[in-house]
Structure formats: C-alpha cells, structure tokens
C-alpha cells in the first residue's frame, strides 16, 4: 500500500512538470504582457524595460519557468499585475469555487445515485423511461443554456432566487448554480448507476439476500449498492477536477468571483503568474483526486489489494 502510493506519487512528477510547462508556454506565447499591462497605451521604454527586467520577462523561457517553479516550491506564486499576490487571490477564489463544487458534487452524488438506483431497479418501467429521456435531454443541452434558462426563469421571472450570487457566495445562493454545474455529470452518474444496478440486480447474491427474507432497503443498500458503486466512484473522483475547471462557465453566468473568474481575468490581461498558478493548483487537485479514487477501491471492495 505504502509502496503503491509512493510509486503513484513519483509518477505524478513528470506529469506535473509537463503540464505546468505546457501552460507556461501557452501563456507566454499569448503576446507581450507589458503591452497588455498598459492596455494599448505606449509605455515609456525605460519603464517597460524596468518592468520587464523585474518580472524576468527579458530572460529565455526556460529560465523564467525555473525561476517561477523555484518560487512555487517556496509557496510564492508571484504577483498579479494589480499588485496583489497570487496566493492571496487564491485564498479568496478557491474557497468560493470549492463551495460551489461541493454543492454541485452533492447534487451529482445524491440525485445521480438515487435516480440511477430507482430506474435500475425498475427497468423498462415508467421511472426508468423518464430518467433515460431526462438524462439524454440534459446531456444534449449545453450547460450555459441550462444556466441562462434557469437564471431567467427562477431569478428574473419568478423571483425565487437572486439572479447573481452576492459577494462571499453564501451557501443558500449557490444551490441553483451548483445544480447547473452538476447537471451534465448528474445525468452521467444516473446512467452509470442505472446500468450497474440493473446488471447486479440479477446477481445470485441479491437473489439469496431476498430469499433469506431481508427487508428491501437492506438488500439494496448493503448488498446491491456496495457492489455497484465502484464504477460510479471512479467517475465521481475524476469528475471532481472537471467540475472545478468547468465552474468557469457557471461562475460567469451567475457572477461568482471564484477560480474561473480569476482565471478569465488573468488570461484577458495575459498575466502569466495568475494563470499558471491557478492551473497548477487545479492540476494538483485532479491528480490527487485520481489517486484517492484508486485507494477508495480497496475500501469498497476488499478483494482489491495494493502491494
């Protein structure tokens, strides 16, 4: 187990370096950050050179990258153009996005699995057909359309929610944005759960459990669900990273000042430090989520062992 984790952590290193360098290179190639800083006005060449020098922009790319990475390992993600350190930007942005992701993740997990179990248990029935059609519809509608329609109907027309989330993103205002963010994944989870539950519902151990006279909820929760959850957990784990990245659109629609908002600002201003810093954290989250999923298998299914 320990060795397995260690090996996986070692494998992460080249991926981490490659990913950050790729992002670094792409942001670098965006153009001249100094020109972007002055927003089209011609700066004094001496000032521009001074800035360029202080930001290491006058060195070759690999030197910049090494300098940047050296900073990252000391916990210094650099400074954004308006003078705030990227670290403090992160401290204001990540909790917000994390809250949104948690809401979305809960929706995805609870509704996805419950819908999936219901339709998987009653295959071909009314619930099943409804769930299948509903999820198909959700998958085919782009997430930003779902966001707009819900914002318009619930926020503007019926005044049930606030159309845009206020500063600090209180939990109750994140319910609808969370639902929008979760919608596509929710449909996938429901379909995945439905398939595995439907497969396992015919398994011998379920028949045995029923024949023993166990109450229905016990059969479903202790026998059926535990055996059906592994593919679902896989999906949920890898989806965590996608949710945080995909929060960008939801944050834009509902005006939430989280990771997506800051990233978008950073890209517009060609601010290398902000973009690379935020993406680096997202990549790390994604890699760790993947590792955790692998370790969770052993908890769900004791037959899986790591050596």
């Amino acid at each position, binding site marked *: 187990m320990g060795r397995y984790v260690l090996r996986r952590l070692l*494998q992460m290193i080249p991926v981490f370096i490659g990913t950050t360098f790729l992002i670094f290179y792409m942001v670098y190639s965006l153009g001249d950050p100094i020109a972007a800083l002055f927003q089209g006005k011609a700066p004094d060449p001496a000032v521009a050179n001074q800035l360029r020098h202080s930001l290491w922009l006058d060195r070759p790319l690999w030197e910049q990258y090494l300098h940047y990475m050296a900073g990252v390992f000391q916990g210094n993600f650099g400074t954004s153009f308006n003078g705030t350190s990227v670290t403090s930007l992160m401290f204001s942005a990540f909790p917000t996005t994390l809250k949104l992701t948690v809401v979305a993740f809960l929706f995805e997990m609870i509704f996805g699995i419950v819908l999936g179990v219901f339709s998987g248990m009653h295959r071909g029935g009314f619930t099943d057909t409804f769930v299948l059609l509903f999820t198909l519809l959700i998958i085919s509608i782009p997430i930003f359309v779902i966001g707009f329609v819900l914002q318009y109907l619930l926020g503007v027309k019926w005044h049930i929610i606030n159309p845009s989330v206020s500063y600090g993103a209180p939990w109750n205002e994140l319910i609808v944005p969370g639902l929008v963010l979760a919608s596509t994944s929710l449909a996938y989870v429901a379909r995945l759960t439905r398939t595995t539950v439907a497969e396992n519902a015919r398994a011998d151990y379920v028949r045995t459990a029923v024949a023993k006279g166990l109450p229905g909820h016990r059969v479903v929760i202790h026998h059926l669900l535990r055996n059906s959850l592994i593919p679902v957990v896989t999906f949920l784990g890898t989806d965590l990273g996608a949710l945080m990245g995909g929060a960008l659109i939801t944050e834009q629609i509902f005006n939430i000042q989280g990771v997506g908002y800051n990233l978008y600002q950073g890209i517009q201003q060609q601010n290398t430090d902000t973009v690379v810093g935020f993406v680096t954290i997202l990549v790390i989250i994604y890699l760790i989520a993947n590792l955790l999923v692998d370790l969770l298998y052993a908890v769900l299914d004791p037959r899986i062992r790591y050596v």
Partner: protein
Amino acid sequence: MSDQPPDRPDQHQPEHTQPGHPRSNELYSAFPSNDAGAGPGSMEAHGLVDEEDLRDDPMQSSQDPAVTDREKPRSLWQDAWRDLRGNWIFWVSSVVILILIIIAIFPGLFTSVNPLTCNLANSQQTATSGHPFGFDTQGCDVYSRVIHGARDSITVGVFATLGTVVLGAVLGGLAGFYGGWWDALLSRITDIFFGIPLLLGAIVFLSAVPSRSVWVLVGFLSLFGWPQVARIARGAVITSKQQDYVTAARALGAGSGRLMVRHILPNAVAPIIVVATIMLGTYISLEATLSYLGVGLKPPAVSWGIDISNASGSFRNAPHMLFYPAAALSITVLAFIMLGDAVREALDPKLR
C-alpha cells in the same frame, strides 16, 4: 509482489485504459449505460436467432472445436449492421444527421435570406411572415442564421473528430504495436494532456491565436483530443496483438506493415469508432461553449454559439433569440450522441 496496478473494475470500458486515468474525460463515452433506449429484448432476440443458426449448422461438432461455427461466419461488421438495422434510434438519428448535413452543405436550399443582411429597424422583433423565427438584436433574421450556423458547427465537429481519430489512432496504435520507449513516452504525454482541463486549455491556447477560423478550432480540438483516442487505440492494439491469429500470421512470415493493416487494424478499430461518434456530439457542443466564452469563432462567422452568446444579454426581452439557436444546437448534439450510442451498442462485443 506484483508491479501491476490493480485492474479497473469499471465494467463499462471494454477498451483498456491506462490505470490511473479511468474515464478521465467525459468525452470518452456519452452513455455508460449498456442498453440506453434499446427496444426491450432486441439483444436477446438476436441471440436466439444466432443460436438457431448454430444448431442448424451441420459443420459444428463437439469433438472438433476448431471447426468454424458457421459455413459463412458473419464478421463483426455484419453483426453490427444487423443490430443497427433493427434499432429505431439509429434510423431516427441518421435521418436527422442527414438533414443537418444537407443543411450544412446547401443552406441556400432552406432559406434565401442572407444571415448577414440585417436591418436595425427590425431589432428583436418576433416572428412575421417570411421570418418565422423573428429577428435578433442587430435585426438579422434568426431563421436564416440558424440554418447558416449549421455549417460551422458541423464542420468543426466532423473535422475535429477526424483529426483526433487519425492522430490518436496512428500514435497510439504504433505505441501499442512496438511498445518500448515510444510507448512509455507516449503514455506520459497523454498523462500531461489529461491533466489540463479541456476548457482551460482551450481558453489559454485560443486567446493566443489571433485568427479564429474554423480550422484553428479544429486544430486545437485535435491537438487536445488525440490522447484520449491514443489511449484507447493503444489498448485495443495490445489486446489484438496477443491473439493467436496474429502469432499465426507472424509465423507465416507476415511483416509488421501487413500485420498492422490486415490483421490488427480491423480488430482494433471498433472501439475507436465508438468513441469517435460520441466525440462528434461533444465537440459540436464544445464549439458553441467556446464561442460563447469569446474564444471560439468570431463574427462575421455565423455560428449557434455566437448567436446564443449574443442573445444571452437580451434574453429577457426576446427569448426567441436564444431559444432557436439553442434548440438547433441541442437537436444536433442529441442526434450525434444517440447515433454514437446505437453504434456503441452494436459494436461492443461485451454485449453479445
């Protein structure tokens, strides 16, 4: 002590994904479900027919298992075609896609109004005669823009899928076939691309490019999509490489080229086709998302994503501006995803 990470217990992936990155991209399969929307019992019915065939076959004998099951064994493709023929979802989605392709190639057949001829006097007006979908903020005819928007969306979807598949299949297939350092390197490269969320990569990459034609989008999507196909192709090639018929062909003196093209390719191509059909729908949706975020196509290009993005501001006053392009987009994505699902069902040998 085994050095092998445990197998993924994910039963819905017939392809061999790399351990550590299961389903790491939602593009992978639209429907993890085995029987999404299939008519009840259609699979079983085919199974029964096949069994009867076997029993009638005089060639079959229990003593000699090497004898072929039928005089003329059906190939995977014939089997798949039999499946598809009986599936109404396949026919419905095919007809919709056919209509969409005709619209994309000959938009003039469906509307004579130029989507770029706009009259501000008509701004945001609802439907009148000759303009069934009304007008947008600039006074352009929404119906005409919806019709003309099909071309860019479908071009991006089709060619990005094509690029992804060719790039991924060749690189991944070679890695699976030859193994060695190239395989190790390729696996690490795919890991790197998987680590970057597609949307973020798109925003960073596309803001770096000054011109945003359809082909830039196609290039980007192929560049960031191929690792997924490469991984699947690699797995499929490794599986079929170990089959007896490949060993037999090699023993008979077939060279690497012949082995790859004649023996491995036909047996490894099914999972790739499955991912490709589902990718199509996802890419079309992604094009709209990118255009909406302002890093996709730019006006004067006519695209559903641009129209939805423009409509989103004045959605409250003129919901028809958002509704029609969004509906067109959703129907297109739905059709491609349903087709992908039907093809997946027909080609997946696990379901037989």
